[in-house]
Structure formats: C-alpha cells, structure tokens
C-alpha cells in the first residue's frame, strides 16, 4: 500500500517509461496500431501506444478523464483530422493498409470504421432519413426497395425497429434519449462498417436505456468489431472481452477483461480498478 504522494511519483515515472504491460497482440487482428503518438499543438496527448484489435471482439478502453482514451479512439477513423491543432504519428493498419497515410481517403475509411458519439446526435430529419443518409451518400442502394431493406434491417439490428416502425417519418429528435442513441447505432450499421467505435455511448443515458445499449453491443459483436470507450468500469466488465487501460496518455495495460478486473498486473491499473482515482 502507498499514500497519494507516492502514487503521484509513480504516475510521473510511469509517464516517462511507457512500456505497456500485458498482451497487446491477438491471433486474428483487424486493426494493428503501432507506436501511435498524438500531439495537440506541442502538447503530447498519447505516448507511443501499440495495440491489436481482434476480429469480432469488443475492446473496452478505460481510464481516468483526460487519459487519452477518446483521443486514441478518434485516431482509428481519423476523426482527429477535424481538429486543426491535432497531429498523429505512427502506423495504424486496417486490412493491411496504413490508414494514417496521407493518401488514405478518410471518407471511405469512415465508412469502414463507423462511430457512435457520447451524446446522441440524430440529424434533425426523419428517423428513416437518418438511417438512409449513409447508404445514400455511399451509393449503396440502387433503388428505393433496396434502401428500404437496408434501413429496416439496420433498425432491426439496433433493436429499434419494433419501437419506431409506425413512425419512421417522425423526426429523429422526437424519440427518447436511449432510442436516439440506438438510432445513431442503426445509422452507423447501415453503411455496413467493419469496425464500430463507441465514445462513451451511454454517458448521457439512464440505467434502463444503458442496459439496452449494452445488450445491443453484445449482439453486434457477432458481425462487427467494436471498440468502446467507457467511464463506467462495470460496463467494460459486462460488455468487453479485452480491456485496455490508459493513464495520462500512456497505454498502461492490456489484457482479457476478466484478468484486468481481477488480477491487474500494473499498480496504476490496480489503483484505478479499486477506485483510488478516476
């Protein structure tokens, strides 16, 4: 046991030595991240993080606020490009293609790696149009019948179809918060991505809506690779197979979720899990 001051020292020394504990590799990787460094202006936000993300697994990323987990997530579909001061270094492979390469078309990348945001952000259009938007811009449907099929299937996969099938013309903003978030997930599924990134998808929702989303994540795992950033450790424990712990821009520890939550190897991980800071 140690007191807070010691913990602080530990943290600082750890920040300098950014070796990740645990097993960063998987047998069947979908995404391979190698030596990722992110800077906001001159300030480093992520230090040399390397990790594999496996096929059809749910990877949870946890850690205290400002640890860089969201920043890392946004590297995976280059949403960081929208922030002018942000600079990403390193290599990120999706299907043997380095997606950090300047030549990569971010638009088709984001169609492959979809994203669900912290706050539900349906477009102020009808429920149908919300889901149909992605397939439309990517030219995925040749006619209305195909489009209908994609929309209905996506809503169904997101567990929303039964609830909204009678009011597909209602504005997407008119349904409850939990339904809105599932609509956003349906919208993402509609472009049939390979990977879905979720940035604290339940932080704005009540416990019942949260439970539904968690169930949904469990179902979606069959077809998609999911990376989820979460504040709630229980959520990580419930939905994920692997967990990555971030601290002050360092990827501290990676491992099977059961192992991280029961026998963490790193002191920082342990103190976070046991609730010493966060």
């Amino acid at each position, binding site marked *: 046991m140690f007191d807070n001051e010691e913990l602080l020292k530990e943290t600082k020394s750890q920040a300098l030595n950014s070796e990740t504990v645990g097993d960063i590799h998987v047998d069947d990787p979908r995404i391979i991240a190698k030596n990722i460094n992110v800077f906001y202006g001159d300030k480093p936000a992520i230090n040399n993080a390397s990790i594999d993300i496996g096929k059809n697994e749910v990877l949870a990323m946890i850690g205290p606020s400002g640890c860089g987990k969201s920043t890392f997530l946004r590297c995976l579909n280059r949403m960081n490009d929208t922030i002018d001061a942000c600079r990403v270094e390193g290599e990120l492979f999706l299907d043997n293609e380095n997606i950090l390469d300047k030549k990569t078309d971010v638009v088709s*990348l984001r169609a492959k790696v*979809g994203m669900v945001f912290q706050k539900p952000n349906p*477009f*102020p259009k009808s429920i149908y149009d919300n889901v149909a*938007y992605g397939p439309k*811009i990517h030219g995925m449907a040749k006619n209305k019948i195909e489009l209908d099929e994609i929309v209905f299937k996506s809503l169904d996969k997101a567990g929303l179809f039964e609830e909204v099938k009678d009011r597909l013309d209602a504005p997407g903003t008119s349904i409850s918060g939990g339904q809105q978030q599932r609509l956003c997930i349906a919208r993402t599924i509609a472009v049939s991505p390979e990977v879905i990134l979720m940035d604290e998808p339940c932080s704005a929702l009540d416990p019942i809506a949260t439970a539904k989303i968690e169930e949904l994540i469990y179902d979606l795992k069959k077809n998609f690779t999911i990376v989820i950033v979460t504040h709630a450790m229980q959520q990580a424990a419930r939905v994920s197979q692997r967990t990555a712990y971030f601290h002050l821009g360092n990827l501290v520890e990676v491992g099977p979720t059961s192992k991280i939550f029961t026998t963490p190897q790193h002191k920082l991980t342990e103190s976070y899990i046991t609730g010493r800071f966060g």
Partner: protein
Amino acid sequence: MNNLKSRIAKEKRFKAYGIISITTALTLLTILFVSIFSQGYTAFQETRIQLPVYFDQEILDPNKTNDWNIIKKANFNGLVKQSIRNLFPEVSGRSNKRKLYKIVSSSAEYQIRNIVNNDLSIIGSKQNIWVLADDDVDMLIKGNINRNLPENERRIDDQELMWIEYLESENLIKKVFNKTLFSSGDSSESEQSGILVALLGSFYALLITLVLSFPIGIATAVYLEEFAPKDNKFVDFIEVNINNLAAVPSIIFGLLGLAIFLNFFEMPRSAPLVGGMVLSLMTLPRIIIPARAALKSVPPSIREGALGLGASNVQAVFNHVLPIATPGMLTGTIIGMAQALGESAPLLIIGMVAFIVDIPQGFTDPATTLPVQIYLWADTPERGFVERTAAVIMVLLIFLVLMNSLAIYLRKKFEKNIT
C-alpha cells in the same frame, strides 16, 4: 441607519434614471410615429368633383370622322372648362372664371380624353364624371386648411370656399380611396403625383441586390466558417475586410458606384440596376456576418455525426449544417434587405434622385426608390406633398415591418432547430 436610508434613496434614484431613459426613448418613438401617421393618413384618400360633361360633337369631332387620331387633337381642356361653367353658370368675368377653373385638377383634361379614347360612341352624350380636385381643394376638404381662419391667411379665398360649399351641399364633391398615389409617377402637382415609380424602382433595385449579395454572401460565410484554414493570413485579411465594410458609411458606396460603375463601366445613370449593385456591396457584409453566426451555432455534434458515417466535409456541410442554419441565415439576409430598402444616400449619388414621371419598364430605365421619393417630396413646402411624404413613409414602414416580422419568425424557427 441614516446612511442606509440615503443609500436606499440613491438606489431608487438610480432605478428611476433607467426608467426615465427608457420612457424617453419610447416617447420619442411614439411622437415620431404619431406625427407621421397624423400627417399621412389623409393621403390615402383623394377628393373628386362631379362634373356634368357634355361630350359635344362640335368640340370633339366637328367633321364626324370618328377617327381617334383626329379626335385626340381636340380641345379637351375647353370641354372641361365648359363643364365647370355649366356647374356655376352665374360666374362671370375673366379672372373669376380662371379662378373657378382651378378648383379642378389639370389632370381632368386627360381623364376626359381617356374616357373618349376608350369609347368613341360617348361623343354626343352627357355624362357625370368624377374628376380629381385641385390640391388646395383637396386640403380644404380633408380639413388641412382651416375654414375658420381669416381669408388672407388661407390658400382658399371666400369665393372659392363658397363654390366648394355649394358642391358639398349638392353632394358633388367626395373623398375616395387614393388610386392616383399608387398608379402614377412623380408630378409637379401634388394631387397627380404617385409612388409607382418609386415602388417599382425599389423592387427592381432590391431584386438585383438579392440576386447579387445573397449567393455571394452565403458562399463567403460557408467558406469562412466551414472550409477556410485557421490561422491563415489571407483568411484573416478577408475577415478584416468584411468587418470594416460593415461599418463604412453608406455614402462611400455611392462614391464607388459613381466612379466605377457609372464612369468606368459607363452604366446608365439613375437606373435600378446600378442602384441594386451599389446596395448589394453594402448589404454583402450585413448578410455574411449573421450567416456566419448562424453556421457557428449549429452544434458540432451534427457535423461529427455525418463525418463519422463517412460523409465528406462538403457533404456534411451541404446535407446537414446548411439546412439547419438556413432559417438563421435567411433572418440575417432579410434584415440586410430591409436596411437596403431604407437606404438612400448612395442612391442619390448615382443619380436615382430625379423627377421621373414615366413608369420604369426594366432594370435600366430611370427610377427612384421609396426613401429617395421621401427625400424629394420632403423638400417641397406644399401641404399636399407633406401629406404624401408621410404617406410614402407609412408605405415604406409597412414593408419594413413585414420584412422584420418574417425575420423574427424565421429566427424563432432557427432557435428551435438548434436546441
């Protein structure tokens, strides 16, 4: 305790200053409106006198040609004079008769002429025709000339007053809706003058302004807000320019119009085309600045949502951000157009200040605009023009109120959109 008392008194005094200030401002607003409305509302009516006109074959068409080209040269003025004499057969003497003829507007001649032109078969018959009264008679009927003043202080002398009162007793004089005001151009006689030239001029000029400044303004706002690189010297320079243009006195834009549009490009003077171009230069920053504010207030989560689905930057902006910001951008545009509608100084410089009788047929015909017409008529001391000036102001204010209400309605809609 005494100290506290004086502090509370001070507090009350201070609050009173605030109330006094607001009341003063609102009182002044009320005085402004009341004075304009009280001067102007009578202008929406005009006075007409019924003349028993005998369309005398001898005067109009002595040779029975039935050919308008010959008839149109006939002495219609004499016909009018004869009709007036029929009304007051007792009046004799040259000067008295001349005074008598003046109770009817000089436009009566043309009115009679038009009637004959429309129906040649009327020749030979007797008809009662309502013709326009002279402006002094008009003023008297409307009560703008006080009948109880001593004779030497009013513009209508006792004899004229007698004639008018005779007409009143016989119901041969009446007030009707002032169609002339909305159907004719300028005139040196106030009862014959109208604002149609100004209305059309304002309409044409504003159309040009809208067509030029709306697309360019919105495109600029979209570029600066959504696509322009941050911390770029050139982009900063554009922004500085826009902010300064918004505060440049409007008359300077008139100088630009004169030196560049009229002198360099040799465009027509007094034309709504050039007027609209000058106004659009002035309106452009007034559209850009609120449009940028509207774009800025669209929640970034909408843009992120679209990007996260694989929409490109352009797609995210055009499919999602723009539709949400549209009511807000329209609000700014309408307010900018309302300001352009009320603007006059730059138009005076490019020659839109002129005595124009002919109705403009297009963008390059000489015209005035509503505010310029106000300026022109406000310069004329005649009571009849004062009344008409106030009436144009009322027409202009009605347009402005309509535009601003539309803007407020759209703003409400926009505020609902982004929350």
